[in-house]
């Protein structure tokens, strides 16, 4: 019996492990290993052990710009997504019955549509000859089309659209902890609308807001499709740059160093955010 008991948890983990080890752990290990190898000019990866790739990525202004661009985009999209999601999540958390079902459906629906299809949808709306520009020109508000597609703004639009559900869902979960009687209790004790928001609603929703921002931040940091299809060549993002480095330049070691650095950045960000939440919202982990 004792042996069966000690083996049981591992058995439960077996299906997950069978999927994650070959398709997640091993590729990451190979990428990390590649990052210390040496890129041969002929495009062959030469085994070795050097930090030259990291040194190049962290000193070359091109790569640094790519990193800062990506961090800025991830941070900006996360903040914008939070600002956009908050009122919606509040409405969703307060609603019930069919209203709630409809709002949730509105969150889930885009997830069912492939990201490529969504990009085409945006093209129809915001390209130079798209619906938006035609309307603006016809109304006489602008004489030249406003460039959105393949600009930073277009990429931002696509990224926010793609990651909004990941922000809304954890936010709704935490905002649902603020019930009607809690708001009544606050009013009853003399708390006005703003006092209640700052002292009750905001602190209780903080863990959800942080969880949402973690998901959006990590998602944007590694997103390839949206920057490639909707972004600008004048604002390079990390995932397309890594792809370019490995496939076009065949610099697998350099690409490995970039990927390892972005993985470390994500891990660091998640860890710090968790520590901050544990510190400012200790009640959430009781």
């Amino acid at each position, binding site marked *: 019996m004792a042996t069966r008991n000690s083996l049981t948890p591992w058995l439960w983990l077996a299906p997950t492990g069978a999927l994650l080890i070959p398709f997640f752990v091993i590729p990451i290990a190979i990428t990390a290993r590649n990052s210390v190898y040496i890129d041969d000019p002929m495009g062959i990866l030469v085994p070795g052990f050097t930090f030259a790739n990291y040194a190049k990525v962290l000193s070359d202004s091109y790569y640094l710009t790519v990193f800062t661009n990506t961090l800025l985009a991830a941070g900006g999209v996360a903040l914008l997504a939070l600002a956009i999601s908050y009122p919606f999540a509040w409405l969703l958390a307060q609603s019930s019955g069919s209203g709630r079902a409809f709002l949730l459906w509105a969150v889930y629906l885009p997830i069912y549509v492939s990201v490529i299809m969504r990009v085409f949808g945006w093209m129809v709306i915001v390209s130079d000859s798209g619906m938006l520009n035609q309307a603006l020109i016809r109304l006489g508000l602008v004489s030249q089309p406003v460039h959105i597609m393949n600009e930073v703004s277009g990429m931002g639009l696509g990224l926010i659209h793609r990651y909004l559900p990941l922000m809304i869902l954890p936010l709704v979960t935490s905002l649902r902890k603020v019930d009607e009687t809690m708001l009544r209790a*606050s*009013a009853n004790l003399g708390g006005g609308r703003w006092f209640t928001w700052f*002292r009750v609603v905001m602190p209780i929703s903080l863990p959800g807001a942080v969880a949402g921002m973690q998901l959006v931040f990590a998602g944007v940091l590694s997103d390839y499709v949206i920057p490639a299809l909707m972004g600008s060549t004048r604002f390079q993002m990390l995932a397309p740059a890594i792809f370019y480095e490995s496939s076009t330049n065949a610099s697998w070691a350099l690409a490995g160093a970039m990927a390892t650095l972005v993985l470390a950045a994500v891990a660091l960000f998640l860890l710090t955010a968790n520590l901050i939440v544990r510190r400012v919202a200790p*009640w959430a982990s009781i």
Partner: protein
Amino acid sequence: MVTMPADTTGSGAGMEPPELVLDNLCKSFDGHVAVDRCSLALRRGEIVALLGASGCGKSTLLNMIAGFETPDYGTISLRGKAITGIAPHKRNVAMVFQHYAMFPHMTVTDNIAYGLHARRLDKAEIRARVAEMVALLHLGGLETRFPAQLSGGQRQRVAVARALAVRPDMLLLDEAFSALDRNLREDMQLELSLLLRRLRVTTVLVTHDQREAFALADRIAIMQGGRIAQIGTPEEVYRAPKSSSVLRFLGTTNRLAGVLVAEGAGHRMRVPPALDFIAPEEIVAGSGAGPVSLDLRAEDIALSPTPTPVHPTAPGIVTLRTFLGAQERVIVFLGDAQIVVDRPAQAGVQQLAVRVGDAVYLDFDPAACRLGAAG
């Protein structure tokens, strides 16, 4: 102009003006009348219970005092000031909620201090008042705990401390004990009753539990169908219920179907197959001759081995005897009717000893009955 409602002169009402006056309050939701012409006045330090079944309008009345609902008609004034349309956070009325509505992200200290921060008191004052409340409600040692780390009883103490910390003009208790188990509930009721009397806190409590109303209140307002059916001291509403519906709400009651027959100047009450007695005029009141229902408390019935003036023929049969501690409950079958009789169970009480299967006659004072519409 606030007119003093007629039924506000509770026993012992002093000369000082009333603290809280509810005048002719009405409220309906989607055409359903929740509160119907309720008037009530409380003097300072008085504890009044709104007692009724769910849906009787007691919670709506409480929510109107707190400001969570606006009356369709009527006025509320507190300490001589009209507060009918004032927002909840501008009334100095504190409430203890049914499930306490603790702020889960705040420690005990921060929960208690919440209303003090909202009132922008200075730090030293807040600290002093929190310490005072912690001492008053025996919360020492729990100051840094979160609500999730407290027991039900401790949570209730924090809820009371949080409400009293703001030194409210009055306190509202909304089914505040219903989440506690019975022994703890009775202890807390006693403790809170003593505390509120010591601090002279004017209190309205809402409950469906008559024990709770009896344990805490100076006066009880029985609410039925949105109206205050009767208001008085616990003894008054229990001993002298104005209607059969009030009687039925308090204590254990037998309801029997009978016929009221005119006889000479008065009436005779017949409950087939065996009860037959002259009905005193004070219980006949509005009921005319014809089929009526008769309500009688279980504890108002005695058992006799021989025919009694109210039960002259056809004895009932004892079918069950249950020991309840201070009382015993005897079930007597009288024809189809199952009669519940509660009697003292202490040794040495002079009464007929009964066993299952015994033939017994009921005995009671006809004045203890209340008559209602048949049905």
